[in-house]
């Protein structure tokens, strides 16, 4: 594993995350990817929203913005428009990016603007005390679904792919070696990249749903995740209760700020 401490603001530790939380594994994956790509930290912006995962921005040594709830992608869009040549990474949570920020997620994907969005999906609102989110599975217990969640849950990868993202991948915190590679490819993709990383919140989600042990939650990720190659050979019956991980979509397409740069070149000469 690469040394990621160069990219951490070590004086900001200890972090705020609970024991057993998987957010640190995802943050390491992001930093490993950036390190592998050898990006100059001065040319990287990390934008986050509000929630447990969004505290990440404060811990990493880049140009960092901790924005408002759900709106990280909008700030990131402004940054990318102003400085198209820079790398802009959004770190967000499932509630942040798919409930309050759902509209921004689909429209940034539609534009295929060159942002890399990494969603820490713990299937719950952790910071506010364990309310259900758009990715909480149906019938699961949360602080605001004490009798079982009635809502259907979102498949964020299918959502962003349908909306126009040119790169879509999913991993888990158990698959700690695969995640950095997927994020790395997402950053390399010149367009909208979406990487969902399934993570564990033992303190709220686990405790309310009979898996209060962090290691058990990691084992569940291991047992239920199926690589895309395997997934494609599985029957619908076999897919029940399982989910697909890996590179789910990768089709380069014209990128928004590049198209705008071309427009500027065209119009400036007039």
């Amino acid at each position, binding site marked *: 594993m690469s040394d990621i401490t160069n990219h951490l603001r070590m004086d*900001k530790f200890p972090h705020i995350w609970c024991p057993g939380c998987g957010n640190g594994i995802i943050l390491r994956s992001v930093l490993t990817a950036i390190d592998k790509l050898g990006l100059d*930290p*001065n*040319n990287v*912006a990390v*934008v986050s929203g509000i929630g447990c995962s969004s505290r990440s*921005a*404060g811990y990493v*040594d*880049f*140009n*960092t*913005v*901790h*924005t*408002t709830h759900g*709106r990280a*992608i*909008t*700030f*990131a*869009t*402004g*940054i*990318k*428009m*102003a*400085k198209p040549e*820079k790398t802009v990474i959004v770190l967000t949570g499932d509630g942040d990016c798919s409930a309050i920020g759902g*509209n*921004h997620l689909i*429209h940034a994907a539609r534009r295929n603007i060159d942002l890399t969005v990494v969603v820490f999906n713990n299937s719950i609102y952790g910071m506010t005390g364990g309310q259900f989110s758009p990715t909480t599975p149906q019938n699961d217990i949360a602080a605001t679904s004490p009798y079982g969640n009635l809502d259907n849950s979102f498949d964020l990868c299918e959502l962003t792919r349908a909306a126009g993202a040119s790169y879509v991948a999913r991993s888990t915190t158990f698959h700690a070696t695969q995640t950095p590679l997927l994020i790395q490819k997402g950053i390399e993709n010149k367009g909208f990249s979406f990487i969902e990383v399934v993570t564990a919140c033992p303190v709220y989600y686990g405790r309310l749903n009979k898996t209060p042990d962090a290691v058990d939650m990691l084992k569940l990720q291991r047992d239920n995740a199926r690589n895309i190659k395997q997934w494609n050979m599985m029957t619908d019956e076999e897919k029940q209760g399982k989910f697909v991980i890996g590179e789910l979509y990768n089709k380069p397409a014209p990128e928004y700020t590049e198209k*705008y740069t071309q*427009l*500027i070149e065209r*119009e*400036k000469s*007039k």
Partner: protein
Amino acid sequence: MSKFLQGNEACVEGALAVGCRFFAGYPITPSTEIAEGMAKKLPRLGGRFIQMEDEIASMGAVIGASLCGTKALTATSGPGFSLKQEHIGYAVIAEIPCVIVNVMRGGPSTGLPTSPAQSDVMQARWGTHGDHPAIVLTPSTVQEYFELTVKAFNLSEKLRTSVILAPDEVIAHMRERVEIPDQVNIINRKLPSNSVDKSTYKPYKVEKDDEVPVIPNFFDGFRFNVTGLYHDETGFPTASPSIVEKCIKRLHNKVGSAYEEIKGIEIDLPKDCDVAVLSYGSTFRSARQAARELNAGHVKLTTLFPFPEKEIRELASKIKTIIVAEMNLGQIRLEVERAVAGKASVVGVNIANGLLISPDPIKEKIKECRI
């Protein structure tokens, strides 16, 4: 150069002249001509326009672009202005310069989308949550719309805060001759010098309690943190009561200290007059005419906030009555009453039905006050 322009077109000209190179917006009547003008003109100047998915997103993108040092504008109206409020406060606490145009139409809710109103005055002052300062400018001619757009950007850059420009629908859509100077006065945000140690630089550090911090632009090698949480001089979150108190007071003080530069008030008081009419925006012409015909005084505001308390208090000691004419049910009147503190009587001419205020009801009110 003299041009015949619509108000919203004059705003576009002013923004471009002062160096605005980014616009993010969402279509809404009666502000849309600003977005249309920016969409057409920005790319030709190397700037960028983006139509976002809603007003919240537009305001977020504006702050994002400004973080990189690009002067950024958004424009909206009534309902869209409500949606922008959270991010207007973000720009205040994180000290990110930006300008928001809110073309005032009739509300609440969808209200009267194509009619003028001056009913967002208090939303402009208090719309975002928290105990924040606000700078709110309002033009009463198309020429002023151009000039105040320039002023709004200059104040936002100098003070590193969001500035709201609030014309009413009539000023936004009216066409008048505008004198556009070859060059406008341009103030750019202060940036740290190249000789500072970037690794130890504290972006929010100030020496005095009314100072504007010298915050670098993103990607200039400082790698600092920006947050909407209360933060210390390094830009990282804190809940320390003493730091929080210092921070919120300084945000107010920096605006207060620049009052003379921000203020916009013209007082025309004929000899021996007992009554003065105060107005702003498109109400100004009717108010001035009524005042002139009846030898009353006239006060025009082009800066609504910070409210000119001192000037209004002085005025109150010279006359008996101040009549506040506005297209709402009395929003600035309350500010005038507060400033006057009983020294003169304050009455309103208030029409909030989508129609302009003509000179007649103002003249009637002047006569009434003299009985």
